[in-house]
């Protein structure tokens, strides 16, 4: 018996059966639709988080240790850290001296200010006071113009390197280089525009909405006592491992802060690893919930489809008898019903994919995170829904295929 013929015919028969029962089919597919939306949304969220994380990871640097007042991830012991002293610029300078020739030490401070260029304004843009060493830490370079230079920092120049989105929003088609902009009450001259970083990351900073200025100028212009909390990035140049670097940074900081051996540290060491743990637990939770919802929805949907298929087999008992009398084998009847349930689920899956594509577009537009339905996810959804359909159809299809032709023909 020719198998391709069988498949084409089975598909035609399945399609006709589904068309004949539109409302029933549509209702049954609801569970499948929800399941597929859940699975695609989960996978899309997972992909989005991964790309957000790797973007953030690039900016943080895998081989960089940060000294800050607070840990990046504060769980519930916030009050333990609250009374810690700020890190100040002189501590940063002492740390730099201690690591001279062995590591790059780069301090930075940040705040938010409004920007203005002629009549155009941007509100609450992240202003980062830092040094010419910043690109060594973050691997981010200007697309054109230049980054801060040593003399900008030494002479407290009003030089600004603006992020990609800042350039777009504030200048449009105007070339920003050497134009004067207002940062809060102060006037700065644009010296460079950073490469595009790709917009928002999941709840994290938007690297394209930043302005870099010399840290010295920052302190002079915006440096009230409240804003004097410096972050110090340390990147090893002659220290072999990150653990060694961390160990040495802690030692030097304890010396600078004159902590006695019994005293706990009153500063925190942060690095990519400390985010990774948090990231993994968030991703784990999202995946876990997503998969749970998915499997429940698909299970319930599958049971629904199985029920419908039982009804379908019973309703068509006589038809099965006719088909068998004129030569259908068990396999043909089995295929007929498996195709039908797979087609019902495939339809649900396709509708689910459409809904998910809409959701992804909405998430993308909302700016929460980059989201798009990858071909891989779509293919996976199609496979999942067909597999659910085949499994849901298995028992009813076997029931139909095993019917005795005489009994089936006599069925009223």
């Amino acid at each position, binding site marked *: *018996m*020719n198998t391709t*013929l069988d498949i084409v015919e089975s598909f035609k028969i399945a399609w006709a059966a589904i068309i004949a029962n539109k409302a029933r089919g549509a209702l049954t597919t609801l569970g499948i639709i929800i399941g597929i939306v859940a699975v695609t949304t989960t996978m899309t969220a997972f992909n989005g988080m991964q790309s957000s994380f790797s973007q953030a990871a690039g900016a943080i640097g895998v081989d960089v240790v940060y000294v800050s007042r607070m840990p990046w991830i504060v769980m519930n012991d916030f009050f333990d850290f609250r009374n810690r002293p700020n890190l100040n610029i002189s501590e940063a300078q002492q740390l730099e001296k201690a690591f001279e020739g062995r590591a790059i030490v780069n301090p930075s401070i940040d705040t938010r200010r409004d920007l203005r260029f002629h009549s155009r304004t941007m509100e609450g843009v992240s202003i980062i006071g830092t040094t010419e060493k910043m690109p060594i830490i973050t691997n981010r370079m200007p697309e054109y113009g230049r980054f801060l230079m040593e003399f900008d920092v030494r002479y407290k120049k009003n030089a600004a390197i603006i992020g990609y989105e800042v350039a777009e929003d504030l200048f449009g088609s105007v070339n920003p280089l050497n134009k004067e902009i207002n940062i809060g009450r102060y006037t700065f001259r644009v010296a460079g525009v950073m490469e595009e970083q790709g917009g928002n990351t999941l709840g994290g900073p938007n690297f394209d909405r930043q302005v870099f200025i010399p840290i010295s100028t920052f302190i002079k212009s915006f440096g009230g006592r409240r804003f004097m909390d410096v972050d110090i990035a340390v990147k090893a140049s002659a220290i072999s491992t990150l653990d060694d670097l961390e160990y040495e940074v802690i030692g030097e900081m304890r010396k600078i802060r004159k902590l006695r051996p019994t005293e706990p540290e009153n500063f925190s060491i942060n690095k990519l690893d400390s985010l990774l743990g948090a990231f993994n637990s968030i991703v784990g939770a999202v995946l876990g919930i997503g998969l749970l919802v998915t499997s429940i929805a698909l299970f319930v949907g599958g049971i629904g489809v199985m029920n419908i298929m039982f009804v379908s087999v019973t309703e068509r008992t006589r*038809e099965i008898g006719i088909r068998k*009398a004129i*030569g259908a084998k*068990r396999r043909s009847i089995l295929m007929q019903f498996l195709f039908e349930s797979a087609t019902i689920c495939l339809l649900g899956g396709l509708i689910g994919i459409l809904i998910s594509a809409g959701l992804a577009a909405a998430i993308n537009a909302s700016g929460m995170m980059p989201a798009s339905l990858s071909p891989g996810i779509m293919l996976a959804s199609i496979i999942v829904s067909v597999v659910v359909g085949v499994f849901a159809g298995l028992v009813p299809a076997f029931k139909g295929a095993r019917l005795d032709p*005489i009994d089936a023909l006599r069925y009223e």
Partner: protein
Amino acid sequence: MSNSYHRNAVLALRDVVKTYEMGAEKVHALSGVSLDINRNEYVAIMGPSGSGKSTLMNIIGCLDIPTSGSYSLDGEMVANKSEGELAEIRNRMIGFVFQTFNLIPRADIFHNVELPLVYGGIPKAERRQRTEEAIEQVGLADRMKHKPNELSGGQRQRVAIARALVFNPSIILADEPTGNLDTKTGEEIMGMFDDLHAAGQTIILVTHEDNIARHANRAIHLRDGKIERDVVTSGDAAAA
């Protein structure tokens, strides 16, 4: 029965018994039927209700197998065949016509008639040609795209005949083919069987009615699961 039957026999039953077990009780639907039917015979199976006519038809049609006894069709023993093999025999060698037409309601006429060829794995182009020929033969060429419920009873039975013919079977089995039709339409359908017989087809039909049986050349009367009488008739209704 003379020996000439054997040589030309399209089917042969020997001591066929069919017993149904209803709990503790046994129902002997057929209790020892021996029968030869030759190629191009036109046979009416008659008998009172419950005498075993449908049971015999089911066995001849390979829808069922005897409890004991042997059955050979076109020289092949049917006993001990697998379900799949029986399906193949039904597909290629037997054309069924039922009292209740038994068309697939959702499928159009073309597809209904085409179906045996589909299960027989015939390529599409050939299927199409043979299906159209069969439908033309029963005079329904203009109804190919109609659904069964858009046709009259007589037309439906003609579709069933086209379906029975389409794979060029060794025998056509009809279980009370006119039972659901009025007399005039029944005669039309019987005329169709007469034509098929004239063209060389072997036909076995079950009927209660003498008028219908008169179309056949041989009448086998069953009673209580046994052959009571097996007579050659004139077939005068067919000639008329």
